[in-house]
């Protein structure tokens, strides 16, 4: 395997770690909130709380951070006969999540191919993770 392949792999790992590590999506709870909002569309505060099992204070602070960054927007929505607080992903939030998902897909293409062929991941992957570990803010969370 040549140096270019190794560099390419390192680039994919680095891209993924950077997409995960930059901005509000570096926290697993906030990443989960964004995934739920994109998968379900508009979601109420209590639905989010039920799905994620977070305390109202904890969920509220994560949503506040996402709202401040322009990733989600809060609005009043009619559910049954009551007006509730709903959240939905903004264009900026969807694009940021898209970056994470695309980089994960690129990474899985390499690691998953090795797994389905019953091989260990390429040696370069291990090296790339080790080299990228220190340079990405998300590494401590993984």
């Amino acid at each position, binding site marked *: 395997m040549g140096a270019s392949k190794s560099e390419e792999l390192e680039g994919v790992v680095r891209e993924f770690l950077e997409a995960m590590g930059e901005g509000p999506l570096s926290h697993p709870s906030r990443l989960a909130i964004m995934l739920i909002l994109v*998968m379900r569309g508009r979601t109420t505060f209590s639905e989010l709380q039920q799905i994620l099992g977070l305390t109202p204070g904890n969920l509220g602070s994560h949503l506040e951070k996402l709202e401040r960054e322009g990733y989600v927007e809060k609005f009043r929505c009619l559910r049954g006969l009551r007006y509730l607080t709903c959240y939905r992903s903004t264009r900026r939030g969807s694009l940021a999540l*898209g970056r*994470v998902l695309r980089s994960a*897909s690129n990474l*899985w293409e390499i*690691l*998953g191919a090795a797994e389905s062929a019953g091989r260990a991941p390429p040696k370069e992957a*291990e090296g790339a993770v080790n080299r990228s*570990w220190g340079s990405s803010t998300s590494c401590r969370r993984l």
Partner: protein
Amino acid sequence: MTEGLKNLKEIAKTLESVRRYLSYQRIMASSRLYAWWSVACLVGGAISLTIGELGLSPRAEGTSILLLWVTIGTLITRAYFSESSRIAELARTLLEEKTPSERVGLTQGLGWAVSFGLGCSAGWVAARAGLRGTGPLAVALCLALGLGNILTWASLKRYFERITPEPAVVGVSLLASLPLILSIKGEVIQYLALLLAISLTYAGASASLAFRARRVLLGGSK
């Protein structure tokens, strides 16, 4: 394998599953859109034929059929906007950032407007040329829906690498079925043939998209 790589692999695998699920939802939304049109065509056709058999005065019959299609059109338009806003929302997450989604939407809207304009004009010309019964309606609908679907496919082809062929297949099928429909004698049978052609073509596209979505979800294709 180090712990870091193992964790990274697990996260990448989970996120790839999420991406596949979102792709599935996006394709299923398109499939539902075609299904709505297919069902509306069948139900509307059946009710309008029943109205025709009630023996109402021509004025009452015309008004009832017009009201029926306006109601169906309103319901379908509402479903269309709900599904297409979901498709656009999912596309923002799934497609490349540089995709000019506004321009894609505008091109498609323009394509549909041109197709309906051409379809209606062709229907009018067909009526003036002496085509009677369902003929002008068949010319207008087949041309409008056929060209609209082909132009939608062409505009998607221009902006995206991987696109589904269903709109093009629907468009070509509708255009190809026009001579067949026009060759049928008898107004009611011709009307039925027109509705069945549209409904079956759209149902086929809906089923094909649903299978495609299932393949994406199960990991067969991206």
